[in-house]
């Protein structure tokens, strides 16, 4: 048994599997060819100079074929993939053609899916659940449940995930994770698939399975393009088209078997028993002398679409343009409202599964509630301790500022990583996602807040009137929401390490502004500071709490008999003392809502800017670029 026979047999087996896979019942899609000419891409390295990563490369990737982009590390293969997929735009706007027409990035994004190198999956979900969510999101309501289920089963079968369909995504092995990533994107059968190093991190067997799978997908009429890092001869033989990049230029394009003749035509001889893929990469990285220019010239930097030994290269048939149909395709599989409900149920499920975290937080809230309650035991109606009751309100505010904010700072950057993939592959719009995210957290926070308030309110003997209780709770609730939104706005751009410092640091001035003016009447505070006090949402929170407890028609507080004189017996007096005599409950609520919305909007825009990676407005981009070149903000 020779090695060649072995390889042949293996190829046959793979082919067989590929044939079977092509028979699947999925939505038929228009085939898409991708062509690019004179593509350039540069990144800023320092203040003045840019580094050119792609230098005028051209190429042609046909549908129904599995294309591999190869090259030594740092040659620009990932960049090429990113640019083609539209993940990075750069200066490459008009040089990519789709079915012979200039690529419209918006339409193209509907057609293509991009599977990134690292597999980040939603935590606390099983494989089946992840797929179901994907199917719900992408296929919409028009497809019945049975059909969706049938498709999912087919995909699970195809990717051999059936056995692990009830495993949590976090417990999958590396290969399974990669396959799940592919499975998730296969749900609505995209005509173009981009994969960034799908085999890196997989062992031999899994990567062979993975490439076979990709080939079968390509056979189904899709355009599958992946960058790959030193494949074995076995894997290499599976690719229909090989595109090799070196130093930002194309050094070969064509069938894998043509590599050896190609090199021979340039007087470079591949040793026997040497993997041609490894060899050409060695050659292009300059290990056998400088042949780079020669190779680039021979392939005309990619303008020669297929190099072949024969004089006449095989005719490549251009497809008729079908872009018009695609333009009518909706942006997303289902309406924003449906996306919202699906995402909300997914998030709720995740929060529910993470019950131990919830339990710990509830217990801590209860504990702190009891402790605070016993410190301020019966202070609420004691005229000699009015000022300390004020302190109690202040402390509760500090608590409900830090407690939602800090976990948000830690948790949100992880979340951003995860949604990057789903968002880019157009599972859902940012709006629907953002609303669902904002809402799914609320009940969780509210339960904790209410537990704390119930204990503290009773123990400290605040006035037991329904209206005051409701108002008190709603103010605390608003503070919680604002703080979480504030934390998220901070961590949307900063890394965890920096965010966890900036968040608490910025909230201290916020806190101090809220009690500013204590001891003197509000009218004596200078104008500037009074204006800056409007910037503190906690100020409104505190005003709201004080007005809830002491405002309205409240009777005089009880002065204990052992005290001679209680200066703050009259509730109004306290409000005057702390500089809040003109506080108003509804105004407080309004301003806190206002700040909540501001934080949410800021967070939304930062997130959008990060996810879309487009050159938005000129100024914003310039600032972003300045920061990127001067500070190390990437994470």
């Amino acid at each position, binding site marked *: 048994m020779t090695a060649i026979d072995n390889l042949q047999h*293996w190829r046959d087996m793979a082919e067989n599997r590929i044939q079977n896979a092509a028979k699947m019942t999925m939505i038929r899609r228009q085939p898409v060819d991708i062509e690019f000419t004179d593509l350039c891409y540069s990144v800023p390295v320092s203040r003045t100079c840019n580094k050119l990563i792609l230098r005028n490369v051209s190429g042609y990737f046909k549908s129904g074929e599995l294309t591999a982009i190869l090259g030594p590390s740092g040659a620009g293969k990932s960049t090429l993939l990113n640019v083609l997929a539209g993940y990075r735009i750069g200066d490459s706007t008009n040089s990519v053609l789709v079915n012979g027409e200039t690529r419209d990035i918006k339409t193209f994004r509907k057609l293509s899916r991009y599977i990134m190198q690292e597999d980040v999956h939603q935590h606390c979900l099983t494989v089946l659940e992840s797929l179901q969510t994907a199917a719900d999101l992408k296929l919409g309501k028009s497809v019945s449940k049975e059909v969706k289920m049938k498709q999912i089963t087919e995909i699970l079968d195809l990717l051999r995930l059936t056995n692990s369909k009830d495993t949590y995504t976090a417990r999958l092995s*590396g290969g399974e994770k990669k396959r799940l990533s592919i499975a998730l994107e296969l749900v609505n059968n995209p005509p173009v698939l981009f994969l960034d190093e799908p085999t890196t991190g997989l062992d031999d067997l899994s990567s062979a399975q993975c490439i076979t799978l990709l080939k079968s997908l390509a056979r189904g009429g899709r355009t599958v393009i992946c960058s790959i890092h030193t494949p074995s001869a076995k894997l290499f033989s599976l690719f229909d088209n090989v595109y090799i990049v070196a130093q930002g230029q194309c050094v070969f394009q064509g069938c894998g078997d043509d590599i050896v003749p190609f090199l021979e035509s340039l007087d470079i001889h591949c040793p026997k028993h040497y993997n041609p893929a490894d060899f050409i990469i060695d050659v292009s990285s300059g290990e056998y002398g400088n042949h780079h220019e020669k190779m680039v010239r021979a392939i005309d930097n990619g303008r020669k679409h297929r190099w072949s030994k024969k004089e006449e290269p095989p005719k490549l048939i251009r497809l008729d343009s079908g872009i018009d149909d695609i333009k009518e395709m909706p942006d997303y599989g289902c309406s924003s409202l449906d996306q919202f409900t699906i995402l909300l149920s997914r998030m709720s499920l995740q929060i529910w599964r993470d019950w131990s975290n919830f339990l710990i937080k509830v217990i801590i809230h209860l504990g702190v509630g009891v402790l605070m309650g016993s410190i*301020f035991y019966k202070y609420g109606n004691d005229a000699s301790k009015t000022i300390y009751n004020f302190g109690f309100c202040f402390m509760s505010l500090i608590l409900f500022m830090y407690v939602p904010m800090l976990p948000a700072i830690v948790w949100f950057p992880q979340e951003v990583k995860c949604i990057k993939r789903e968002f880019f592959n157009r599972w859902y719009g940012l709006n629907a996602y953002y609303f669902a995210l904002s809402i799914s957290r609320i009940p969780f926070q509210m339960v904790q807040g209410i537990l704390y308030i119930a204990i503290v309110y009773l123990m400290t003997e605040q006035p037991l009137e329904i209206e005051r209780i409701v108002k008190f709770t709603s103010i605390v609730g608003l503070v919680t929401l604002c703080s979480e939104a504030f934390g998220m706005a901070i961590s949307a751009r900063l890394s965890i390490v920096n965010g966890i410092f900036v968040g608490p640091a910025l909230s201290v001035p916020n806190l101090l502004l809220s009690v500013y003016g204590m001891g*003197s009447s509000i009218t004596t505070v200078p104008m500037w500071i009074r204006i800056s006090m409007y910037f503190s949402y906690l100020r409104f929170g505190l005003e709201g709490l004080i007005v809830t407890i002491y405002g309205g028609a409240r009777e005089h507080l009880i002065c204990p008999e052992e005290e001679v004189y209680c200066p703050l017996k009259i509730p109004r007096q306290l409000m005057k003392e702390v500089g809040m005599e003109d506080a108003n409950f509804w105004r407080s609520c309004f301003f806190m809502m206002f700040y909540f919305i501001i934080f949410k909007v800021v967070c939304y825009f930062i997130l959008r800017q990060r996810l879309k990676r487009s050159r938005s407005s000129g100024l914003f981009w310039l600032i972003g670029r300045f920061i990127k070149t001067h500070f190390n903000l990437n994470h």
Partner: protein
Amino acid sequence: MADPFPRRPAVNIDFSDVTYRVTTWRKFKPAEKKEILHGVSGEFRSGELTAIMGPSGAGKSTLLNILSGYTVRGSGGSIRVNNDERGVSKGLEEFKKISCYIQQDDMVRPQLRVREAMSLATHLKLGCDIPGYQKKQKVSELLGMLGLAKSAETYCKDLSGGQKKRLSIALELVTNPPVIFLDEPTTGLDCVSTTSCVDLLKQLAEQGRTMICTLHQPSAMLFSKFSHLYCVAEGQCIYQGPPAAMTSFFQSFGLVCPQYHNPADFLIEVASGDYPRDLDSLAQAADNLALKRAICLDKNDNADEKGIELYNLQSRKKIKQTSDNDLVSAKCLPKPASMWLQFFHLYNRNLIVVRRDYFQILLRLICHLFIGVIFGYLYQNVGNNAQTILANFIFVYGSNLFLHYTGQMTVLLSFPLEYAILTREHFNRWYSLLPYCLALFLVEVPLQLACALAYLLPGYYLTAQPFETARVSTFFMFNLAICLTAQATGFLSGALFPVTIAVFLGPVLSVFLSVFGFASKYSDINAPLRPFYNISYFRSAFQGSFYSLYGSGRSDLPCSEFYCHYKKPKVFLDEMELRDFQPVQEICYILFVGVISYLFTLFSVWSKLNRR
């Protein structure tokens, strides 16, 4: 000894009846005891590259962990090193000196260059007995041997997966350990890197080391490179011996490897039960195989000895002796750096890391300065006015709170982020915990002090606090003390709790502690809560800072109106029950809390690292 990097004696490991039990805790159900390894036995010889294989969940990583001493708790059976029983407490430390364990994820510090990482390892492990030029030479030699010479100046974060793996092997090869354990060295590498990695391992084994690694689905070519195979299925050993004899062994049980099938895949399929097989009889047969092998090997050994006897009996005997009893004698073991030297090198490394990450430091300093100026502006001149004494009270509270949070939060993540690297380096005996922690603390402490000063100086000046040396110094002392203590508690909570809980618990506790003294007086607090008042270091710092401004006979404050209640600072101090405040005692208390927190941090990290 002339040779600074002496040859190390050969080490054989054999083990019998190794068991491993875990107790799993489940939601709403009683705990369950589960045996993962059911008494496996085997022998791993020096000069062999051993692969432990098996389907996931079969217990191969567990076996490796037990053999390397990484897991101790829950394991049973006996492990012998060169026929000496390795006890849990006695032999293990000795054994760790001659072995190293390379985990699956490559924990290398991303901000260091390859050469820097390597020279740090040599400095730490080889101590100062070996001159610098020899160390340098050794580093270059190792980098060259592992094919890393080209990327010696690359940052570790820019290395590819294969290079990272080779670097983590190179880091451990510095002391030339005779036993190397590797957990899935090939997982995560592409084909070429995998091949070169296994070739390297084989080469290392042929030099006389005992190389043991777990393996996950290798290719047929890779599979044949291993000299010894140990296959685990459902906690039992189903095969041990050379890979080539594997198929025929299974054939005798009626399990035939199909043509064109990777024998490694076949093995996994058998182990995971794709073919009908009787596990017990397989295990029995595998044990027999082991026996046969041992006899055969011993015979070979004897033959070998006889062969050498003619002319080299003396030296051979000697080697035998050392390998039996003196595995860790001073002669063959390089002396690691002393505590101080370890501290020095680690501190240097931390400084490099901090310097390369300068954005974070800049952000911290600027943030402190900025907020100091804002506070100062808001509370302009409150320090020298009888009417604004309450505002000053709040300013002091706010400053303390600010310094407390920034101090605590910045270091909260330092242990959780470093923990993986720390575990690896500590387990492989790079350094002791004390110098490591000291180096970590001593980088953060001056930084935090600088930040605190950046905040306090503008704040103090702008709010027109009294410029008397005694007051300024005590005020600063209290503020810096709270800052440092907060940092210590930050380290502690980061070391004690998982991140999500630490991030949440830290602020809650500090809010709770800051209530005392600020929002409630001692006399007003219920008796059961008074201990909390006393232990609150936040209270003591807050009161201390306030007392330093107004206490010890400050003259009357200027008052622009007809009557100011707090014209005499003493009145306010009386009201706040601060008249009998003892600054010296309190500052000692704050620092005491800080020191205690540091000690607890050390202890908790130590117990985490030693919980095996």
